[in-house]
């Protein structure tokens, strides 16, 4: 690139997302999802890649799996001491990685399997999830050099600066088995790419991979920060993750209702609805949560305990394709990515803007 100036070279790009889930809860290694990112290589620019796997820690499934980046050993020691004040830490270890030339400058990467101390929860009168979420916010906001990038039970996020297929190899994802996987290749538009800013973004068991660039970021951020969330990274995907946590966990909305808040139909479309109950409900959701309408282009996959939800912005300014084969459902920015995972895929279709695609694992199978 020597001698090249800005404007003389254009790298055509746009983020890539992909996901796969077994409705029967059958385990898959991370290999297929890593392969799926290869035909979409040119949608990323090497400044971020990541994966989320669900069902990957069955032996610790009752513990929150905290994945952390540290800048140095002292920060890690300090953070461990902080965690031990309010959590039982049953295991703490380096996350296994492979040294490969494509991934460099890695931080110190650890995971802890933890559960909040009953006495602390009783004292604070908080439920477990709320306390874990607050702890994540506290570390990410106040502890310089430490960053929690995964905090759910029996799931984990793995992300780095690099191309996604390299990030997967770096984290040895071929050695994990999960019933559902999501993936992301990043082409950062508004922030310099760094490890914490790669996708998926997570809070508790919610993880979000996102292709797009939302234009409502600041309006959404101002609203969601009133409820204790701290948007530390100035990236739009972080705010989408917190919005979904707020709507689903705190407010108790269903997935479809949450989709109808963030990708609300136009008033004119609502006006034309024949079903009076549906119409009233859509009006209600738009009226109660106007600040959580997400505008601008997005296609996202939300991962959660036992399922996935894919959603496009209401104008469908980004592409997304869904396909099926037997117990599996595939989602990706491009059909080619699905065909890599399953050449014999059937029922390939493109959901409409604002139409959530919700896939759940059979109850009891995960």
């Amino acid at each position, binding site marked *: 690139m020597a001698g090249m100036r800005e404007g003389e070279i254009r790298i055509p790009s746009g983020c890539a997302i992909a996901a796969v889930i077994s409705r029967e809860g059958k385990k898959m290694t991370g290999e297929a999802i890593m392969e799926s990112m290869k035909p979409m290589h040119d949608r990323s620019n090497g400044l971020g890649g990541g994966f989320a796997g669900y069902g990957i820690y069955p032996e610790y499934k009752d513990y929150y799996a905290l994945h952390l980046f540290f800048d140095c050993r002292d920060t890690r020691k300090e953070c461990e001491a902080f965690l031990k004040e309010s959590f039982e830490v049953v295991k703490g270890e380096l996350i296994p990685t492979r040294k490969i030339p494509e991934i460099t400058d890695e931080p110190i990467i650890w995971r802890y399997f933890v559960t909040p101390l009953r006495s602390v929860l009783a004292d604070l009168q908080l439920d477990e999830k709320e306390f874990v979420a607050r702890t994540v916010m506290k570390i990410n906001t106040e502890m310089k050099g430490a960053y929690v990038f995964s905090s759910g039970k029996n799931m984990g996020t793995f992300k780095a600066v690099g191309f996604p297929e390299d990030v997967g190899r770096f984290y040895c994802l071929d050695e994990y088995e999960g019933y559902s996987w999501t993936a992301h290749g990043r082409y950062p538009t508004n922030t310099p790419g760094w490890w914490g800013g790669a996708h998926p973004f997570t809070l508790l068991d919610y993880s979000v991979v996102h292709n797009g660039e939302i234009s409502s970021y600041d309006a959404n951020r101002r609203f969601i920060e009133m409820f204790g969330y701290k948007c530390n990274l100035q990236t739009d995907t972080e705010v989408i993750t917190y919005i979904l946590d707020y709507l689903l966990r705190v407010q108790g909305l269903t997935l479809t209702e949450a989709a109808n808040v963030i990708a609300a139909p136009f008033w004119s479309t609502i006006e034309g609805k024949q079903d009076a109950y549906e119409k009233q409900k859509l009006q209600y959701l738009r009226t109660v949560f106007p600040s959580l309408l997400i505008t601008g282009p997005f296609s996202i996959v939300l991962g959660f305990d036992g399922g996935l939800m894919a959603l496009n912005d209401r104008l*469908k300014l980004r*592409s997304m394709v869904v396909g099926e084969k037997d117990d599996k459902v595939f989602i990706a920015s491009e059909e*080619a990515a699905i065909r*890599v995972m399953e050449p014999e895929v059937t029922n390939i279709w493109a959901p409409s803007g604002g139409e959530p695609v919700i896939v759940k694992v059979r109850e009891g199978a995960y």
Partner: protein
Amino acid sequence: MKLDVRNLGYREVNEWLREHDGVCELSECLGQRFIAAGMSDREITIEGTPGNALGAYLNGADITVHGNAQDAVGDTMNAGRITVHGNIGDAAGYAMRGGRIFVRGNAGYRAGIHMKAYRDKVPVMVIGGACGSFLGEYQAGGVIVVLGLPQDGQKTSRIVGNFPCTGMHGGKMFLRTDAADITFPWQVTARPAEEADLAEIREYVREYCSLFGCDEESVMNSPFTVVTPDSRNPYKQLYVAN
């Protein structure tokens, strides 16, 4: 000439195509974008799933895809023909200004966005199945035909999604339906097609039927709705006072 492109990037595929004219066959295609960009004077058949912007700036070549195509088929295409024996993604024929696109199945959102015409350059797009929302968004010229034919034996529920013809200011759109359930913007006129209107598209429908093997008379023997912009300047004073 035949090339297995399974492990090739789009640059290698296009370099190979540039070195060959006549009939070129690509097999095991999987997501390579920009295939045949700007090319003329050759026939290209593709097995598999070509990537985005298939035939961008196409300048006379004839492409046939045995499978589905992804987004932005025929982006800014100038001349030639693209035939897809499957479905296509979003924004097909984006700013297309000549040539023809034939799709056996369905199209995603924004098919024909900002198609334009100039003198003898009149782009044509024929979609056999249904289209997503924003069909013909900002259409400035050319002809879009949507047939709404059953796909895989399944009747299409609706021939087009929401907000068709938004910002349309030129060209013509033909929908094979009475359009009773479709809402158009007030800047366009939608009316039942008459004999003279149908005569304009008969040639395109004939070509569609010969490409995909269906009966021209039974396709034409149906109500059609023709949509045109209201006047030369339907958006007067929408943005600026002019």
